[in-house]
Structure formats: structure tokens, C-alpha cells
């Protein structure tokens, strides 16, 4: 009896334990105190703008500037040698940024933040453009499907569909323009235009122009381009440039500033671009590069400054790898004076727009005065870099333009040459432009680098002097999205650097 009584008491005690645990509601315990379940769209826009831009700057530095031979790598020079592995960071980091932009678009739509919705679409278009131009067919309409569904294997869309399809980026940019034009709202969380929706409209139009020029080898883009030139808001000056003005401290400074000197020094001025700069005595050299012989900022532009260029290509095969370091705006050297102008992250600039228009006119795609836009483009670039024309021996920009040889006989190749120089650090655009120029210089039948006069065949190159036409899909896709990957690779004829994407078929 005693035993029974005791057991009952004990069981009560146990129940008490169980009850206590019920008070501590498990659902509350397992609610994350550090991370909210809902956020407004602007905080995602801010984050994704920074992360996508940081990634683009790094890829400009490591890939695009070197492939296009504005700069050259002094070590890890597989890029310059045309011996490419998968450059998976571009893919991975941009799809991660897209996740936030797609989410931001959805949240903005639900909350009637029309301007945010529009800006999110513009940024998505810029990134999808970059990805399809690099890789070819990519997950597009089904991309980011894992955010709100259980589809973790998004199907690929063709490059044609991504660029030019019914819901391709041209159509999406139109959608964004119409959203941005129908609202009085500011874009919130905006690191590019500080909220100005009409500047976003301009950027959307410039991105359309850029895309159409690339499409011009595939279809007649005259009407589309002319329509934009005639009827749409475009950049009017450097004030409209789509740039991210970085802050002066980590982690919001220009992404090259945190680098170790050895890693920064691993990229130097290229022999190819140096020849062009010196040919015209172009004052932008003092902005792009740091002289070999002086550390004083004042003398970057002085006649005593000595600049050298390295050969693009192998770091070992007897190639010259000595070249001037990049300019003061890209890095603070310990013990050297700090530049008062720091580099920005660039999506597109007025200069690029003007040179796109100049080229289109020169080719007869649209009508107009090619040279006027050519001149605008060069001048805008000089203004953007705030160059000191005087120290390069010019009395003014006009003096430079008229007497350096830049304006003599403005051919398509000259426009290309200036656009090549002007798109330095414009994301991956230097590569896409150079690739298209090489293609056209080879009469659309190959990518022999020597066809373009201002480029050099890389020293000890491993691809017969042929510029690779695409980045390899990352292993991530091959192993995790294999069914769709295989369809894309089959269409391409192999996941190789020389497999021709639709744009060059």
C-alpha cells in the first residue's frame, strides 16, 4: 500500500516535469531570435546590389580586363593563356544575388512598391544578361525556383530566349521601364541612383541598347535601336552613370582594396593597352596605371613617369610579365600616398552608351553622326576619370582629340579601340565586346585574335591564338542539375571554352 502511494506521488512528480516543459512552448524556443521571417524588399536590394557588384568587380579584375588585354596577369595566367577551367564564382555569386533580387521583386509586388519592383527587374536583367553572355544557355525562367517551391533543378532556357525571347531580358526591361514610369515612388535601398526612378529608366534603356548591339549579328535590330534613340530616356552625362559609389571602409570599400599586395600586383597593365595609350599619349593612362618609377601621386601624369606593359599569356614560357601596376584609385599601397579618388563599381556609363551609338551608326544600323557620339564617348570617359590632360602635354580635351590621332579617320576599328579602353572594369563587358569585335573582324567566321589590330596573340597561348568564346558551366550544375545541364551541353556540343553559343552560330 505504501509502495502504491509512493509510486503515485512519483508519477505526479513526473507529470509535473512534463507540465513544466509544456510551459516552455517548443515553438517559441525554436523561433530564431537572430533572423526575421519577413523583411521589406529594400534590404534585399541593398544587399544584392553590393554582393553582385563586388563579384562583378572581382571578375573584371581577374577575368574580363585580362581576357580583353587591357591588363595582364603575372601569375595564375591560365586566363590569358586561353587555358580555361570553369570560372564558377561568377555563376555562383550572381545566382545568389539573383535570389535576393527575385525575392525583392516578389515582396515589392505584394507590397505595391512599384519602383522597387522595377529596379529589381533591371538588376535581374543585368545579371541574367551577364550570365547568358558568359555561359550560353542558362536557367532563366525557372531560375531561383527553389525559393518558393521544391524544384531545385531549374530547366535551361536558350541564349536566344534569355536575350530576345518573349519573356527575355529585353521584354523584362520594358516591363521594368513601364513600372518605373508609372510611379512617383523612389527606389528604396538604392545604392546606384539614390532612389531616382527616372535614372533607372535610363539605365534600362542603355542595357537594351547594349543587348541589341550584341544581337545585331543575329537579327535586324535597326528599328528597335532607332526607336530607343528617338523615343527613350538615355544617359545624358556622367551624372547618369550606373555606378556603385563605394564607401571608404571594409566591407563597403572597392573590393580590391582589401587584397594582399601580392594578389593585387598579380594584375598589371598589358602590352596591348599600353601601346594604344602611348600611341595617342592618352592621359587616361595616369588613371588606369601607376608608374614604375615614382610613387608620388602628383607625378602619375608627368612626362618622367615610366609605364610598362606585360605580355598576356603564360607566366613561365619566357613571356615578359613585367608591367605597371593598376592606378591609385584601385589600391592603397602601404607607404604610398592614398589616392583621393577611389574606384567605383560600374554597370554602365555614358561613355559606353555613346560608343555603342557611334558603332551602330558607323555600321548603318541606325542613323546619326557617328563621330559626334565617338567624341562624346571619349570625352565622357576622360571626364569620368578626371584626367589631367595638361600633364600629358595637351592643352585641353579638344587639343587631345584633334591632335593625338584619335580623330583621324574614324573607322569602325577606331571606335572599337576606344570602346575597348573605355569599358575597363565594366563588369564582364570588356570580354563580351572584344569577343564580338574579334568575331566581326574575322568576318563572323572565327575568333582568331590577330584579326583585331590592337590585340596581341597571347604569349605561349594554349588555344592556337583563338579567343575562347564562353565560360565553362560550373561543376555544381553538372552534378546537381545534371538532367538540364546535359540537355544544354548537348545542344552546345560539349562544355568547352570553344563551343559556340547561339550568338555566334
Amino acid at each position, binding site marked *: 500500500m505504501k509502495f502504491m502511494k509512493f509510486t503515485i506521488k512519483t508519477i505526479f512528480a513526473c507529470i509535473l516535469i512534463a507540465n513544466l*516543459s509544456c510551459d516552455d512552448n517548443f515553438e517559441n524556443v525554436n523561433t530564431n531570435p537572430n533572423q526575421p521571417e519577413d523583411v521589406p524588399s529594400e534590404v534585399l536590394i541593398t544587399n544584392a546590389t553590393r554582393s553582385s557588384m563586388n563579384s562583378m568587380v572581382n571578375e573584371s579584375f581577374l577575368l574580363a580586363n585580362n581576357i580583353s588585354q587591357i591588363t595582364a596577369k603575372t601569375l595564375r595566367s591560365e586566363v590569358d593563356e586561353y587555358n580555361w577551367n570553369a570560372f564558377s564564382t561568377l555563376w555562383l555569386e550572381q*545566382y545568389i544575388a539573383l535570389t535576393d533580387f527575385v525575392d525583392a521583386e516578389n515582396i515589392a509586388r505584394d507590397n505595391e512598391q512599384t519602383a522597387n519592383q522595377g529596379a529589381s527587374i533591371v538588376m535581374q536583367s543585368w545579371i541574367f544578361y551577364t550570365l547568358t553572355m558568359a555561359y550560353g544557355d542558362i536557367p532563366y525562367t525557372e531560375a531561383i525556383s527553389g525559393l518558393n517551391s521544391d524544384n531545385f533543378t531549374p530547366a535551361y532556357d536558350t541564349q536566344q530566349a534569355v536575350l530576345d525571347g518573349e519573356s527575355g531580358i529585353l521584354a523584362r526591361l520594358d516591363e521594368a521601364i513601364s513600372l518605373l514610369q508609372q510611379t512617383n515612388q523612389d527606389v528604396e535601398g538604392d545604392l546606384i541612383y539614390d532612389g531616382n526612378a527616372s535614372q533607372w529608366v535610363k539605365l534600362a534603356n542603355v542595357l537594351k541598347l547594349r543587348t541589341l548591339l550584341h544581337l545585331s549579328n543575329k537579327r535586324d535590330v535597326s528599328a528597335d535601336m532607332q526607336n530607343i534613340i528617338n523615343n527613350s530616356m538615355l544617359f545624358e552625362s556622367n551624372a547618369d552613370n550606373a555606378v556603385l559609389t563605394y564607401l571608404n571602409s571594409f566591407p*563597403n570599400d572597392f573590393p580590391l582594396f582589401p587584397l594582399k599586395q601580392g594578389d593585387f600586383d598579380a594584375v598589371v597593365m598589358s602590352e596591348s593597352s599600353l601601346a594604344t595609350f602611348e600611341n595617342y599619349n592618352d592621359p587616361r593612362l595616369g588613371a588606369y596605371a601607376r608608374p614604375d618609377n615614382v610613387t608620388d601621386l602628383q607625378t602619375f601624369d608627368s612626362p618622367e613617369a615610366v609605364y610598362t606593359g606585360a605580355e598576356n599569356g603564360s607566366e613561365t614560357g619566357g613571356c615578359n610579365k613585367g608591367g605597371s601596376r593598376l592606378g591609385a584609385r584601385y589600391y*592603397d599601397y602601404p607607404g604610398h600616398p592614398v589616392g583621393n579618388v577611389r574606384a567605383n563599381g560600374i554597370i554602365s556609363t555614358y561613355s559606353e552608351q555613346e560608343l555603342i551609338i557611334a558603332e551602330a551608326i558607323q555600321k548603318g544600323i541606325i542613323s546619326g553622326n557617328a563621330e559626334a557620339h565617338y567624341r562624346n564617348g571619349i570625352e565622357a570617359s576622360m571626364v569620368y576619370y578626371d584626367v589631367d590632360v595638361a600633364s600629358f602635354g595637351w592643352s585641353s580635351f579638344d587639343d587631345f582629340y584633334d591632335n593625338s590621332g584619335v580623330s583621324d579617320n574614324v573607322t569602325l576599328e577606331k571606335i572599337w579601340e576606344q570602346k575597348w579602353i573605355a569599358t575597363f572594369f565594366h563588369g564582364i563587358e570588356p570580354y563580351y565586346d572584344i569577343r564580338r569585335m574579334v568575331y566581326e573582324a574575322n568576318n563572323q567566321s572565327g575568333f582568331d585574335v590577330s584579326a583585331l589590330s590592337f590585340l596581341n596573340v597571347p604569349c605561349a597561348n594554349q588555344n592556337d591564338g583563338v579567343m575562347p568564346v564562353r565560360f565553362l558551366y560550373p561543376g555544381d550544375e553538372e552534378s546537381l542539375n545534371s538532367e538540364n545541364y546535359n540537355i544544354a551541353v548537348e545542344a552546345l556540343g560539349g562544355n568547352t571554352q570553344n563551343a559556340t553559343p547561339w550568338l555566334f552560330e
Partner: protein
Amino acid sequence: MKQLNLTSLTFILFLLFSVSTFSQEKRTISGNVVDEKNIPLPGANVIIKNTNPPRGTTTDFDGNFTLEVEAEDKKIVVTYLGYQKKTISIVGKDEFKVQLQPGNQLDEVIVTALDIKRDEKSLGYAVQSLDSKEVSDVKVTNISNKLQGKVAGVFVNSSGNGPTASANVTIRGQTSLTGNSQALYVVNGIPITNGLFSPGDGLNGSTTIDFGNSSQVVNPDDIQSISVLKGPAAAALYGSRAANGVILITTKRGSDKEEGWDMEWNVQTVAKELLRKPNFQNTYGHGGYGFYSYLSGDIYTASGGVNYYDAFGENWGPRMDGQLIKQFDSNGEPVPFTPAEDNYDNFFDTGFLVSNNVAVSNNSENGDFRLSYTYLDDNDIVPNSGLTRNTLFASIGKELFDDKIKARVNLFNIRTSSDNIPNGGYDESNSIMYGWLWYPRQVPIDDLRQVWRDGQVGEQQRYVEELWVNNPWLVANENTNTHQESRIIGNATVSYDYNDKLSVRARYGVDIKDEQRQFRRATSTKAIPGQFGSYREDEITFSEINTELIVSYTDMDREKKFNYDFKLGGNMMKQRSNILSASNNQLLLPSLYTLTNNRAEVQVENPQAEKNVNSVFAFASLSWDDWIYLDATARNDWSSTLPQDNNSYFYPSFSLSTILSEQLDLSNSIFDFIKVRAAWAQVGSDTNPYLLSRTYNPQPLFGDNAAFANNSFAPNPDLKPERTTSFEIGTDIRFFENKLKFDFTYYNMLSSDQIIFLPRATSSGKQTQLVNAGEIRSEGIELQIDVTPIETEDFAWNSVINLGANEAIVESLPDGVQDSYPIVADVFPGDEGSRNLELVAVEGEKLGQLRGLGFQRDANGNIIHENGIPQLTDEKVLAGSYQPDARLGWQNTFRYKNFSFGFLFDSQIGGKIYSRGHALFATAGTITNEDDPNLNLSTLEGRAEYNISYNTAGEPVYSLRQGTGQGVVGPGVNADGSPNTTAVAPRDYFYAYYGNGFNRDNIEAATYDADWIKLRQVMLSYNLPSEFCENHGLDSVQLSLVGRNLLLITDVPTVDPETFSIRGGTFVNGFASNPLPSTSTFGLALNVKL
């Protein structure tokens, strides 16, 4: 430290003298000896302790004795066949009632789950234990390392990661796709955390600084025993976390000793030296392709068409034959270029580990207590690094109301602090070892002791080159990682015996950790953003509180044939953690380390986590006639980390033990004891908090703009608990009067429904998805052989072999995994375009495969070359599993009169290890590579050598020496099968061989058979003669020479293969990522008891 030693010494001496001054008259004592049921024991021996020849008597028919004792006699020892001996203090007391407990040598009592003491013979599962002597004989800073070689089936890997180095402890091998299969640590029945607590890894990413797993702080001098509960059957009562086995630590208490006062003093001082060194070359110095001439220290190769290579950062430069070359610190003058051969030894210190413990205990009828204080000082071999640890321990027990209520409190207060925890690996800003990879062979390390440039103290470091590496003294002396930890581990127990059978026990246990860490990086440190220097502070608090209630209904009356023990209990576990991490990424004033000295916003992260698990469990133990034992357990857990509808999981276990020797007549056989056992168990397991719903991850502000990001994983609202099902059988046989003991276990374990982050294509917007999937089967044996070939009065030899063999096979992987599941997708973060080396799981293969690119080979396995360069595969290949086939320990103990000598060999058989350090050292031309079993090619062969002169402009002019620069011909064939005869520059060959230049993505080149043998421990002890002790009022004095890790035998070049990497708070086995060198220790120990 020295002061403290002195203080404790004085204290001891004081006590020593004060004790020895006690004295008493000659007198007669008397007493009565009874068994556990108060039945008198006639013929029991009563001997006065420490008398020679023994003086004593035996009890009469009624169990009574009388004995005349002298003034200096302190204790009597009472023995009776089949009963445990008892030692009793006779100081100040003349009448004794002595109760003996049944038991003999066969009935070793072992602490099992929930602190239940059991006869070892009654257990149906494998348990092995270490006694206090084994735990504390030779001191280590991390207690887990004492299990090495001593327990079959326990795989303990230590590493050279400084004084706080973690020990990677797995029991019966890795069973998880997440890579985490660490054993649960339990102190006095209550779990403690063994977490790594490595938020955000190192200061600026890269390698994890090893602040050590948390269980290491438990002080060896306070440990009475460690029981290792190997399988789930043994551990099932501990629930979720016990699936990987339990290390059960029981602390000392006053009642362990006989009645009266006891005191103990342990002091140990050992020196630490390098155990393994890279095979450095002393022929060629800094530079590349034979070129080197110092200009400014920042020219990687050439400037203005002149080859300087003064920041090439590798040792492919000129021959160090004394020719005149402009060098760092030569003020532009050409000076002799000669090797600095002893740099490595000159840099590392002789370390010292000092441990000093004083314990006082008392046992009386009224209760018992034990107080202990331990001071540990570990000066590491890395300059300016080490730790001190102060441990206070108290255990107080009291019995009340006619012994019906028993209460006990155990409390540890452990304070650890360190001036610097050194880092290894590839952390450029903070790893000493990173610097050694590239360190110029011609620069004497002592010349760099002045770390700052003249007039720029604290602002600009002084080093041989400006592009890559930091001055090693700057890293050691300025870039420090300090920490201070305060830990409280304690519990309070109250039990109430209602009657003979029914009792209740309530217990409350706390484990509170409060730790601060400070990370300093001096201004001008390379690889710190902008080289402004940086400072970070972490405040880590963690607590785990367990409340437990158990009701027992027990009848263990040995008069009856049927005995039983029923228990029913509940436990509530609450874990809270709060990590506050503030980073000042760019200092404003140089080298001033505060959070407010910032040029950028201070980045703050403050992850908090909470987890509750409620449990109800039941336990039944039945025995029949002392030869059949049946145990059953059941437990149900409710975890807050799982979905509401799915958060309850039940799991049972059964075990059976039969003592066949009790039933068979063995009197004429060689057998003394035969036991057969079998067990089956299931254990469920939960996961980490906050994985069920979608949330947004806060990011640093951009100016005034807040930023949040989507998490990279897709949460799973339908998560289920993991399951581990295990089966084991074993036998314990003893022969020749227990001179030979043999214990064998076979087990088979299946882990299923594992909670893993399944990789997903990033293009889907998620990089991983949380799922239940995967099955891993582990199978293995454990074998212990204990032989005592000789045992006489003066001489004895005992030899013990511990063997554990284990194989874990991946039976199934989640749907959607193609060829491999990445346990760690990216062991070494690579450059753009490189193919990462991975640790993966592959269906049908051993768990934990090393994966990366491999060599293209012909049918005979020869490496295919093209233009003299070895060719690599396009696709990744497997280079084998890190899993060793077996771990084998061999302990020998010899005793001759007052001397004893013991040594322990520990070894690993099988398994692979990839040595990143070796690949880097070889490609840097820093080592000879002559000890590499994979590649029979020295880095000294075929190099180009130049005579170097200077032109009028002071620029170097190189002329090739005749007969040099012929290059090397790699062993292998061409694509057409003909032998490779093409010579290439040695640097180019080594870079291609280890994997596509700087990518280093060839797994095969630097993967080695990881077999090793270590002389783990040696100890030579001398016990002072008992007469001497007696005369000085001491119980015993033992003086020992001790050593650990004195010898390493292995084919693995450059590194100690007993190591692991840490990524994201998880141990990564099979990859040595350039760890700090391992050490051997040797020194003196003194143990005094009074």
C-alpha cells in the same frame, strides 16, 4: 607561474610537517567485522598498515578483534575472501564497526549510464574504463588524449594545433554524413558540452583557430575513473546525443578513501620539443628559376626587363654557395648567399608543461568532502603562446536521517586563459606555418626578430618581401589570439531511500561556459583589408542545464536467486548559447587594439540559440542466480528543434549477459571465467535549432542602408529524427587464474534518416536543402588481450593489447546525388578556376573518400606525360578513404620491487591522408622531397644556376653555369607508351605534378598511406620505501620520469599524419592542412600522499 609553484610547495611542506607532528600513546583497539547484511565475518584479517613484517590479527567467531597498536600506527586494513578490502584510520579512535562489501577481482565495478554503478560481469554491452592512475599519470592538457591506445574501438586523433588543440574522438568510427560524430562527454552523470565554438572561423575567414573542444578542461587529477560506453546499447539512456558513444567521467570524492584525512600532492614538469620536422633543403635560396637579387622586395619576377624575383616567395633561387648577391638587409651591397640551416629549430622554443595539484579529502560517518586545486601552465613551442588553467574542485557528500537521505554536490570551477593560441594552416595573417612554407632558406630567422622598420614601430613591419608573407615574429608576438574562459561544471544530487527497495533520486546539473576571445592583427599585416590591422572580440556564453528525477525499485539481495532493478525517470535539458562577436576590421591608429579605434563601422554579429529536450526513460535490469543478466531500456525524447508533429521519438535497447562459468564446472580446466553477451539498441537524434522555417540573414549595413540576405539553405518543415540501430555480441574469457584475459566484441550499426544539408544547384536559389536521407553501415570488432606472464612478490609484467577495427560503408545516398555527396565540399578554398579537393561519401564505398583530380595513367599505372609535364584527369577521382582499418594500442607495465616501468605504443593501420603542407613545401622548393614515397624526384635536381654580377646601373646580370639547368625528367610515359624523356624546369614539374599550378587540385600526388606507430607514453616510477614514508608521516611518495609521443614511425613525409583539419566548426579527417608541428614531451613527476 614560478611564484605559484613555490607557494603551493610551501603550503604542502607546511601541511606535511603539521601532520607528522601528531603522536599518540601505545594502546589497544577493538572492533567488529560484518558483511553487507550485518552478519559477522569470522576469520577476517585485520592488519596494521605499513608494518613489516605485518602486525595484525584475525576476527573470532563473532567477527570481533582486538589489537595492540603503536603510537605511529595510523591505519588498519581489513580483508576477507570474496569481499572488498577496507582501510580505516585509527587515529583518535579505539572502537570500530567494519562493514565489508561483497566483491572480488572478477567483479570490477563500472560506472554506467545515469551514474549507475554495475558489476562489469552483468553488462551485456562493451564498456571499458580507465582508473584515476591511468588518467593522471602523465599529464596532458586535453584529457581526451589520455584515451589514446588505451580503449579498443576509440579513435582519438590529436593534432599539433597549439596548447588548446582539439582531440577528435570518435567511438566505433564516423557514422555521419555531416562529418560530426563526436562522442558525448558526461561528468558525474550529467552531459557537458564538447562544442568547438568557432563562430565565423578565423579573423578574416580562412582557417579555424583551434580554441579546442570544450571537454578538454576536465582536470585529470580530479578524475576517479573514465568509462567509455562504446555502443548505443550502453549509451541509450543518454538519448539523442549518445548515438556516438559516451565518455563517462566520474570525479573523485572523499568517500573513495578510508575514513579520516587524506592529502595528495601531484606535480609534474615536462619539456616539449618538435616531434616532426619538414625535410628542409639547404642548397638553394629564395628566388625563381635560379634568379634572385634584392631591389625593393616587391618585384614578383621582373621590372623594367630585369629579373629580380625578390618577392617570388619560393626557394627556387640561386645556389647558396656564398656567391655575392644583393639581399634583403644588405643595403644594396652584394653579400655572400649562404644557408641558414637551423632556422626552424631556432624559431621554435622548448615548451614546458607544468601541472601542480593539491587535494585534501576527509571521510567520516558524518559525510565526506574533497577539495582540490590544480594549476596548469602550458608554454607551447610556438614563441609567445601557451595557456594557464586553474581548476578548483569540490565534492561534498552528506548522509542524513539514518542514511536515508544522501546529498552530494560536485563543483568544478575552471579558469583558463591564454596570451596566444597559435594558428596553423593557410591563414596568411596568422599562421606561423604559412610563413614556413615560403620562408627564404638563406635568411637567418634571428635577423628578423626586430619586426618593425626603423622609425615605424607599430606601423610598418619589416620582412624579406612585401607581397605575400608576414614576418613570423610579427605573427607570433603581435598577431595574437588571446582567450579567457571560465567554466562551471557542477551538479547536486539528493537521493532518498524510502525503504530497502524503493528510492528516489533528484539531480540538477549545470555546465556554464563564459569565454572571451580577442584577435589582434597588427597594422601592416598582409592579408588584412587595407593592411590597417584589425581587432575582434568574441564573447561566448553557453549553458546547459539538466534536471533529472529517477525512481528506483530494487532488490539486489544476493540471498535470493532473482534480483531486479527498475528505474523510471525524466529529464529536462535546456541549452542556451549567445555569441557576441564584434569586428573592427580596420584600425584607425596603428596597432592599437580596441573596438573604438576604428576607421570603419564595427561589424557586430550576435547569434543566439536555444534548445530544449524533454525526456522520459525507463530501465529494467533483471538477474537470475548471478549468471544471467537482462537489461532493457526505453527512452522517449521531445526536441524543440524538430517539427511540432514530429518532435517525439522513442527508442529501446536490450542487452543480455550470461556468465557461463557459473554454470559449467571449470575447476579442472584452464578457464576461470566465461561470459557471453549480446545487445541491440536504437537511438534517435535531433538537430540544431532554427532549421524549420525560412528566415533572413542580417548582413553588414551599407552606410545607412540595412541589408539582409536569403539563407542559402532550404528549410524543412517536415524533418524527422535520425535513427541509429545497432547490434553487438561479445565475450569475456579469462584463463590461467586470470593471468590471461580476452575480451572480444563484434558490432554492426546502421545510421539512417540522417539530417543533412543536401547540396542543390545554386541556380535554384538555394545551395542546400535540409533533408532526411542516407544510410551508413558501420561494422567492426574490438579486442582486448590482457596478459600477466610473470607475477612474483618482486617482479611483475603485464601487457595489454587494445585493438579496434572499424569500417563504415555508405549504403545509400539521398536521391539526386550523382556520384558523390560532399561531406566537406571545399577543404581548401581555391583560386578562381581550380577544382576543389573534397571529402565525400560515395555509395557502396567507405565513408570519407578524398576526392580531387588524379593522374592520367597507362594500363600499367604509369603517369602519362606530355612535353615532360604530368597529365591530370579532367574528372575528379577518389584517392581512398581516411578511415583507418584499425587502431592498435600496446601497453606494457613492469614492476620490480619499488620500481615500475611502462610504455604504450599506439598505432594506426590503414587509412589515407592528403598532406597539403607537403604539396606546398615541395612546390615552393623549400624541402628536398627526398622522403616522398609517391614521387622519386628531388627538388634539388636539374635546377638552373647562374653566376650573378652587377652592371654599372647596379642591375643583376646572370650567366648560366655550364652543366646546370638541364631540368628534370618525370618518371612515367608519353601518351604513345614510350618512356618520358623530356626534361622540364623542376619548378614547373612540381607545380604541374601537385595540380595545375597554383590550383593544387591533384588529390593523388600528396595522398599517402597514413599508417603510423607512436611511442605514445613512457613512464619509469620509483616508490620511496614504505619505511621511509612511515618515518616522515607519509603514505607514499612516487617519483617518475615521464614522456609522451617520443617516437613516430611513418612513411608520410613532412607532417605528423595524426592530424585533422577544422572547417566551419567540424573536424575534417584525412586532410592535413599544414598544421603546427606535433610535439614530444618528457620530464619529471612527483606524487605524494599523506
